[in-house]
């Protein structure tokens, strides 16, 4: 429980009242930040209120300087608040990290106060392993209108540092025969002949100054990721212990993720390529590194890793074609399980180029192992499924083909259409086995089927269509369908169909009256004959025209 000291106690009454208000507001805002995210309205309200109170004080009294003593905050030697000795108490947190004075200066901005509170929140609890504390964090943000004084706490002060009395090497001689790693010892004598007094050797010229300026700019602009990956691979190659190897791989994993984010696909590709080579090289010997490398590839193929690309597709689409080629090559090197992460991204990208890239990658990965794509086929919604079926269309594996017929039962006509396209693309002869599509509820699917059916002469398709026509009565109202079936029959058919077509042409009614030339069936048969276009078919057509 934080205790705010009563007004009557202090000698500087009004000022202290204002100070107390500031601290109450500060504490309040801190508590809110512990409960709500920083953008939450409740925290923002208390932050604004704190800023107003603080501004009010500074306007009247100038900079506000607090002293911190263990669990108390003091203003001009007066204890203003006193709280428990735990992390609920601002004073405790500040004092724990060595801050003994805190100053809020004129013109302090809202973002500065917010930064300060966020630091307090982040480092509210300090563990042995914490990599920062309030002081190091404040130093890094370097707030212009908030300053602090701190002592170095947590260091072993049991022994005073004494500069050693003696300069260690009492028997040492000066210079000659010096052997120092990194220095060519034969140059030692020359050093005496090139005395440092030669100003020309070290005087900084205007060119040097210019060079220095550029040096800093170049350093800021330099490509880091590629180099970092290069070094990590270099370090990795030197490792002889599994633990160390894993350590480097773990870091490499994180760096690769950054490289993906920064669209450094060439670097990603080259890195993966080297690691793949490593696997290949060590495979024969069943080296311990194989397992770690495989785990690494499993990791970079996971959703956790690849999700960095999730919302990035608009930017990826802007990459150079060359970089996209590297992205493609890099992704292709992943494990097939990457499909699970990559496939949903097909819906994220609007660029045809990147969509095509993803589809190619998924196709290649699925060829390696179809399982992951297959899983998606049964669970994915139709939009994505259409694209995935399009991917399958261009695949080669038996498995990927075998999954297609089942998908002809999919509720979505668009999906069925894509499946049909895929099947036809991969095995046109299979059309003859898809006769049920003649009964597909969707006209477009029916049409497409008939188009495919008529693409080439095929006895099995011919038989399919003939059987259909013989066994199904197509109503005259469905004229277009009727014509399409006959035309397809003509296109895939042969003289084998002529007896059936002849019957359609010269059909005699019960009263032995020849079917009218205008009858749909006769017209349809004529279309078919035209498409069959054999001598016999032509003869039959000729005869039909006379009768």
């Amino acid at each position, binding site marked *: 429980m934080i205790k705010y000291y009563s007004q009557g106690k202090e000698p500087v009454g009004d000022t202290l009242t204002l100070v107390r208000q500031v601290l109450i507001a500060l504490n309040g805002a801190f508590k809110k930040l512990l409960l709500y995210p920083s953008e939450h309205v409740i925290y923002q309200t208390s932050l604004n209120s704190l800023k107003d109170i603080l501004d009010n004080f500074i306007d009247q009294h100038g900079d506000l300087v607090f002293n911190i003593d263990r669990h108390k905050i003091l203003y001009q030697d007066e204890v203003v608040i006193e709280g428990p000795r735990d992390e609920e108490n601002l004073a405790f947190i500040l004092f724990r990290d060595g801050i003994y004075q805190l100053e809020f200066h004129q013109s302090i901005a809202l973002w500065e106060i917010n930064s300060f509170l966020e630091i307090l929140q982040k480092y509210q609890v300090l563990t*042995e*392993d914490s*990599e*920062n*504390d309030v002081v*190091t964090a404040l130093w*890094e943000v*370097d707030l212009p209108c908030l300053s602090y004084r701190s002592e*170095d706490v*947590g*260091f*072993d002060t049991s022994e005073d*540092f004494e*500069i*050693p*009395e*003696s*300069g*260690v*090497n*009492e028997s*040492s001689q*000066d*210079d000659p*025969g*010096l*052997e*120092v*790693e*990194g*220095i060519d010892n034969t*140059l030692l004598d020359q*050093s*005496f002949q*090139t*005395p*440092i*007094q030669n100003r020309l*050797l*070290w005087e*900084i010229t205007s060119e*040097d100054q210019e*060079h*220095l300026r550029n*040096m*800093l700019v170049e350093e800021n602009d*330099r490509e880091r990721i*590629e*180099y*970092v990956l*290069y*070094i990590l691979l*270099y*370090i990795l190659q*030197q490792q002889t212990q599994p633990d160390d190897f894993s*350590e*480097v791989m773990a*870091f490499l994993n*994180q*760096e690769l993720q950054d490289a993906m984010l920064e669209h450094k696909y060439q670097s990603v590709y080259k890195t993966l390529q080297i690691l793949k080579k490593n696997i290949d090289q060590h495979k024969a010997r069943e080296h311990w590194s194989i397992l770690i490398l495989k785990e690494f590839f499993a990791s970079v193929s996971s959703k956790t890793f690849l999700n960095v690309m999730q919302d990035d597709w608009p930017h990826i689409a802007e990459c150079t074609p060359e970089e996209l080629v590297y992205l493609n090559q890099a992704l292709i090197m992943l494990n097939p399980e990457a499909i699970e992460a990559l496939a949903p991204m097909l819906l994220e990208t609007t660029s045809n180029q990147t969509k095509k890239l993803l589809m190619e990658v998924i196709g290649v990965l699925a060829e390696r192992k179809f399982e992951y794509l297959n899983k998606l086929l049964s669970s994915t919604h139709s939009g994505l499924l259409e694209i995935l079926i399009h991917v399958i269309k261009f695949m080669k594996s038996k498995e990927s083909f075998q999954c297609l017929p089942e998908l002809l039962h999919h509720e979505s006509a668009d999906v069925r259409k894509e499946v049909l396209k895929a099947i036809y693309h991969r095995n046109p002869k299979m059309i003859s086995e898809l006769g049920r599509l003649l009964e597909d509820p969707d006209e477009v699917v029916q049409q497409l089927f008939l188009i495919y059916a008529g693409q080439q002469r095929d006895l099995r398709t011919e038989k399919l269509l003939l059987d259909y026509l013989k066994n199904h009565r197509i109503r005259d109202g469905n004229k277009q369908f009727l014509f399409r079936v006959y035309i397809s029959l003509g296109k895939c058919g042969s003289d084998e169909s002529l007896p059936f077509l002849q019957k359609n042409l010269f059909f005699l009614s019960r009263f032995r009256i020849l079917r009218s030339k205008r009858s749909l069936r006769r017209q349809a048969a004529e279309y078919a004959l035209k498409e069959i276009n054999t001598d016999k078919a032509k003869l039959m057509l000729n005869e039909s025209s006379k009768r």
Partner: protein
Amino acid sequence: MTLQPVNDNLHKDNLPGIALLQEIARLIQISQLYDDNNKSIIVAVHEFKQAIQASCAQCRQVALHIVNGRFFIQEEKLPLFRKNAKLFNHMLQFFEKRSIYGFHFDADLETVATNEILLFVRFLNLSDKYENPAEWLKTELKKNDIKWLEVIQEPTSMLHADSQESEFKRSEALVRKRETAKKAYHYSLNSVKEVAEKLHAGKETSIRKSVRMVQRMVDIIAEDDSAFFSLSTIRMYDDYTFIHSLNVALLAMSLGKEIGIERKMLAKLGLCGLFHDLGKIEIPKNILNKKGKLNDLEFSEIKKHSINSALMILKLKTDKYRKVHLFVSPFEHHIRYDYSGYPSVNRKHPISLFGRILTIVDVYDAITSPRIYRSTTMSPDKALGLMLVDSGKHFDPVLLKVFVNMLGVYPAGTLLIMDTGEMGLVQHCSEKSGSTRPNVQLLIQNDQKRYTKGNLIDLADRDPKTDKFIRNIIKTQHPSVYGIQPAKFLL
């Protein structure tokens, strides 16, 4: 004159200044009663030393003045309470009788022998027998080479004190800065040791303390890096790798500041310096400290250390972004500017700025450090000369120039032998003539063959009659040749 016994109760809750006065009084009193080996005398000398130390929060000197019948310590008037009135009156009378208006004591009397302090006290007692006691005392002190105190013979007016105030404050601030720097040095050394030891033991380790100290050092360097130049001359066998790492960090940050690297990056550079040799903890000591030439196998072990340093940094418990900044330059620090070093890497990747900085400061500190495995050490100026020969080959030529300019032709801690026969340590560049004729802390060898501080002189000073330089350098040497630890004299 015999002083009245002093009230012991005064001691406990007194201000340090009053305690000092009390200890002086006690010493004067019992030195008349006992000889030098007496236990009470030895205790009194010890208490006196402690009182001096307590009076000088991080200063080099303790000033005891008598002005208008009141005592001042470090220019602060000692409060006159009823309980200390007796002591004040006795001491005022004692000094008045000897026309002594105060003393300036060196703050650090740890190295001053007990008999030397007693000699001073006995001379002080005796001095009232002479016509000009203060002058006599001064002469006797000089004769006996007692340099840790100065006798004030003239009354110091408060006006005078005021006029000296700014100088005094400057000197106080300097002392404080040096103390802060020393503390940061000490803690940084501990922090890097702790990190290395934990890593060696296979434990996870955070670098919070190192980060904190590096930030502290950046702040100090931003203001004035001279104290760190002095501290970077510290040499120790036992902790060589850690001292070297810390020196590299300090010099790297200073060089970084010189070329305009901003503070946050300076802190990262400092951490790179601190951790650049972490990989050496994996190298067997018999190889690290081997006397004589290393065989190929041993050298290949040594060559692994930059890669291992990078690996160790990857093992630190800190966030990935910090690690990325930290591991690259330790990996690079032996590659050399012309890529002729190790590890052998692809030239298409330029060596990072931090890497080029570390290469320079690492070699400089290494070749100016005495090592167990070699009998020779190079003086700092010769080290720079040697490095300049390799400019553009091993070292970035422009950065090396900046480094030389930063340290000066004769870097702090260089031991100079002068044509006057004097010997001294370079303190810093002269305001008059730059780095070729620096300011020098003269060293004097006492009867015990130990070196003590002499005057601080400027090598640019000329003889007004002849207009020739008063002193010229005839030789430079590494201080270790004389077993001298420069930082001990420069700070």
